[in-house]
């Protein structure tokens, strides 16, 4: 079969390129917006999804991973006693103030976990080792947030909440985009940071000209002078944030959740999937980011449709006499529509492929900046579906025009 569709498209290369640019733009926009949304919501649940836990026990009032009330260390022990629980490990989350050597302040999220445990995985450790976090005042941060923390490498130091801190390891894929930088360390280290009070100094100076008063709040003593009290083991009354549970093999998680809730009053038990869903939904809905990115994607689809239908319509209009000739020669409607649809499919494919290349490029470039643009095979397939649907819909619009072609036009000069 001779492909009239393809030949007609390539007949006018500049117009074809404009069309392809339009579709490419639309597909890129949709993919990137979806990628950002997925990357964003993925990042909020990275720590949950990376964990080996089956169930998360948290305070009953828990909103999401980072927003909850404390449990007690004693409850970890209680959880271990529950029938069907193979292992229970505490996780401590808390806010702290990071102060660089230059005196710059930055909020940080302290994450304390059982270093010897197996249930919590703080991303991929790319420099240093997990065990180094057992050392007093040693933490791990995500590669993407080192700039924000104004540190570069292992061994760099700063202060957290008036206590010294040394970077002992660097992780990847551990950081939530919406959260302050995570500092991972042992339960004991984090507990120490969270329990240390900090002093606040207010230094004010008059600006030249005497107009403004410039004030700096200093929460800490200078790092060199920091006291380093010995790290104490956690007591049963120390607060923790979540309990990660590994079930015995073959346990029904629904009934195990019920047993845990019964054994630990005031708590709620979620499976890891439920915990992740709660957290990502919270961020998508509460922040409106889902709507904003969704709008962006919708704009992409609309722009793409307008461009494709415009080009297809123009192409069909230009070739109206040819379609009439085809009809006169006895071409079936199916064959004629086939030409238009094939044309729109070619446009879809030729716009989609470069768009994906661009998106993969943008995504890997963004990754170096610590921004996750998550382009999953699902997104790839979905966007292809959207582009094809959009092109065929535009093709159907153009077909309206062909349907009304009177084959008798062939004899009109």
């Amino acid at each position: 079969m001779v492909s009239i569709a393809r030949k007609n498209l390539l007949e006018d290369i500049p117009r074809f390129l404009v069309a392809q640019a339009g579709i490419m733009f639309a597909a890129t926009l949709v993919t990137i917006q979806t990628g950002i949304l997925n990357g964003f919501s993925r990042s909020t649940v990275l720590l949950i999804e990376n964990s080996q836990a089956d169930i998360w026990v948290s305070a009953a009032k828990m909103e999401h991973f980072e927003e909850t009330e404390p449990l007690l260390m004693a409850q970890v022990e209680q959880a271990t006693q529950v029938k069907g629980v193979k292992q229970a490990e505490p996780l401590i989350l808390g806010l702290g103030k990071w102060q660089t050597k230059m005196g710059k302040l930055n909020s940080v999220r302290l994450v304390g976990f059982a270093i010897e445990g197996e249930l919590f995985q703080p991303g991929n450790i790319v420099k240093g080792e997990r065990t180094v976090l057992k050392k007093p005042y040693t933490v791990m941060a995500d590669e993407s947030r080192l700039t924000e923390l104004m540190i570069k490498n292992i061994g760099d130091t700063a202060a957290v909440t008036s206590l010294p801190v040394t970077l002992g390891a660097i992780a990847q894929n551990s950081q939530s985009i919406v959260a302050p930088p995570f500092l991972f360390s042992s339960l004991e280290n984090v507990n120490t940071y969270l329990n240390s009070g900090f002093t606040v100094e207010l230094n004010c100076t008059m600006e030249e000209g005497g107009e403004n008063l410039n004030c700096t709040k200093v929460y800490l003593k200078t790092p060199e002078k920091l006291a380093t009290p010995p790290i104490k083991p956690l007591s049963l009354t120390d607060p923790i944030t979540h309990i990660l549970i590994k079930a015995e093999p073959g346990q029904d998680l629904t009934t195990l959740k019920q047993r845990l809730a019964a054994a630990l009053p005031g708590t709620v038990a979620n499976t890891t999937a439920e915990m992740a869903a709660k957290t990502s939904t919270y961020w998508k809905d509460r922040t409106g980011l889902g709507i904003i990115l969704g709008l962006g994607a919708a704009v992409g689809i609309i722009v793409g449709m307008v461009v494709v239908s415009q080009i297809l319509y123009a192409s069909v209009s230009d070739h109206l006499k040819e379609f009439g000739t085809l009809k006169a020669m006895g071409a079936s409607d199916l064959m004629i529509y086939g030409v238009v649809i094939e044309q729109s499919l070619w446009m879809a494919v030729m716009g989609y492929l470069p768009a994906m290349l661009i998106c993969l490029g943008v995504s890997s470039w963004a990754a170096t900046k610590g921004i996750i643009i998550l382009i999953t095979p699902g997104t790839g397939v979905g966007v292809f579906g959207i582009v094809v649907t959009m092109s065929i819909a535009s093709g159907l619009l153009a077909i309206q025009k062909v349907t009304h072609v009177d084959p008798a036009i062939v004899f009109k000069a």
Partner: protein
Amino acid sequence: MLIQQLSSKPKSNITTAITAHGVGMVFKSDSQKFQALADINLSIPKGDIQLLMGPSGSGKTTLISILAGLMTPTAGNIQLLGEEITSMSRKQLTQFRRHNIGFVFQGFNLFPALTAAENVEVSLNIKGIGGRKGKNEAQMLLAAVGLEDKGKMLPKNLSGGQKQRVAIARALAGDPQLIMADEPTAALDSQSGQAIVEILHQLAKKRGATVLIVTHDPRIVNVADSILYLEDGRLQPPKFTPTG
């Protein structure tokens, strides 16, 4: 009378390719009515080359469109190859044209994006001849019109006469029994016009196809078996009958 007798005969014995009986065409636009054709009766024997002549605006194009099943008359009926086409559905008509009619147009109507060979191939594709067979047949048809070495050229690089020869090759694709040509030489200089007429004549006679040619061109008269004159939408008694 003769017409009715013929049309009632069984198909296999049909010797008439095109029959029209009482055909009329009225164009209606808003408030105006225009009688483009009135009371057309004709019968064209199989294998004939039939010319349709007449002044501009006399209704030639309208008549050939109707006879080719591209336009439905407002009165009368038409038999092509013994089949009543006036009562056919749009789909049936399309199918009938596909298998029985080849077209040649004044403006060639070639597909500019396709090569000469592909233009012929598309017509074969429509008739269900595809793949290698379609390509070979297209090449043979081009050879038949003397363009065996022009298959890869785009229409824009061919002369008017060559384009019309491609169009004839395309019209002959699938070996239709009827060939309808509206002013096939009008866009050509007299020399290429002459050549086109000769090719059309030769190939049609060889294949036994019936050819209806609308023309102003007096030179075509030589190849015609008979001539119909149209004036103001009515057929006129013959003024001139060519040899035979």
